[in-house]
């Protein structure tokens, strides 16, 4: 499969539902940030030691969810193309909550602010958290800008909950990465 099509050389791209939009549009900005988030999440997994396969696979599963979110963001409501999309329910956010609780059980109680730092995988998890928050802001902006046409209402709500929870997950994952790699939280002594 060739990667380049040339159809986006002049600043526009096609949505999955067919509309031609500027690459600077709120919708493209939203799934562009989502793409960046996915890449940073891949970096988190790549930076972990090889003996943490369970965590790597968990991150990979979340990356797959992010692709699903991207497909929804690339599709306007009512398009026949939605038949190819997997329903996005509240389940992925619930799974993140379970993962957060599970990781937290292994971590010391947090009594101070922590600074992004420690093991490289922890730093990257903090970076992913920041990108996730930005993605969330972009999706909110898209929902506001499209006034109900960003996507199916319920799906968009599930996506926003998922992104909100994913930021929390990534914060805990950052601490957990330090824990897994034998490093302490970097505490803020300000």
């Amino acid at each position, binding site marked *: *499969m060739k990667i380049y*099509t040339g159809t986006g050389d*002049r600043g526009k791209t*096609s949505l999955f539902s067919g509309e031609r939009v500027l690459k600077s549009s709120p919708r493209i900005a939203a799934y562009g940030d989502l793409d960046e988030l996915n890449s940073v999440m891949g970096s988190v997994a790549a930076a972990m030691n090889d003996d943490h396969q369970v965590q790597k696979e968990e991150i990979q599963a979340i990356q797959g969810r992010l692709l699903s979110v991207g497909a929804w963001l690339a599709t306007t409501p009512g398009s026949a193309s939605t038949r190819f999309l997997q329903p996005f329910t509240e389940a992925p956010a619930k799974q993140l909550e379970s993962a957060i609780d599970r990781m937290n059980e292994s971590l010391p109680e947090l009594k101070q602010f922590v600074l992004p730092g420690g093991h490289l995988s922890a730093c990257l998890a903090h970076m992913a958290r920041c990108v996730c928050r930005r993605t969330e802001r972009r999706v909110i902006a898209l929902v506001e800008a499209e006034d109900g046409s960003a996507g199916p209402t319920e799906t968009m709500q599930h996506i926003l909950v998922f992104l909100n929870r994913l930021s929390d997950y990534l914060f805990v994952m950052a601490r957990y990465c330090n824990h897994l790699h034998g490093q302490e939280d970097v505490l803020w002594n300000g």
Partner: protein
Amino acid sequence: MERIVDRDRLASALVATRAIAPNILEVSMQRPAGFSFLPGQFVRFIMDGYQRDYTLVSHPDDDTIVFCMALIKGGRFSNTIVKARAGDRFQFSGPHGHFIFQSAAHQPVFVATGTGVAPFVAFCRSGVNSALLLHGVPNPDQLIYRHLLEPCLNTYVACISRGLDASGRLKGAFAGRVTAYLETMLKPDAYDFYLCGQRAMIKDVTALIDDRFGGSRVFIENFD
């Protein structure tokens, strides 16, 4: 790109092949039990470590699945199909692809080059008829499925890029590429464009759409 794993593979026996134009074969195979598809989707044939994608032109309810293929001199799949006999078995996966007919937001315009007309044959056979089809070919003898498409669709325009003399004798044909037709004959407005063909055509037509047909939707299936 969709990931193909062994469990997705289906097997099918060849029913028949027939030439429908110089160097273009129509291939019919048995439809495996339980195999279903949407008009416009393709199957991926898998042979000895390589694969080829073909859009189905048959109706989803037919007993056979049918596709057309341009014969490539020295091409591995071409050679295999040409030599194949009825009953020979082939492996494929599918259906794949998202190039289906959408509920119309605007007047549909189908643009194809060569065997890229295949999904529009499938659309037509499934009852889609309110569309303009531009079929770009170098010579009139490459106008496959014209007998089916011309009476089926609102407007059928053969765009003949090289065989000018011949196109002059072909009623309703346009002498020139599909891009020339779009630039000179189609009123600027918003349409639902469906493009299937080679990359260069799709790139050129998409640029035209951005320039002349703002507010249009574009659905693309390209050949590598």
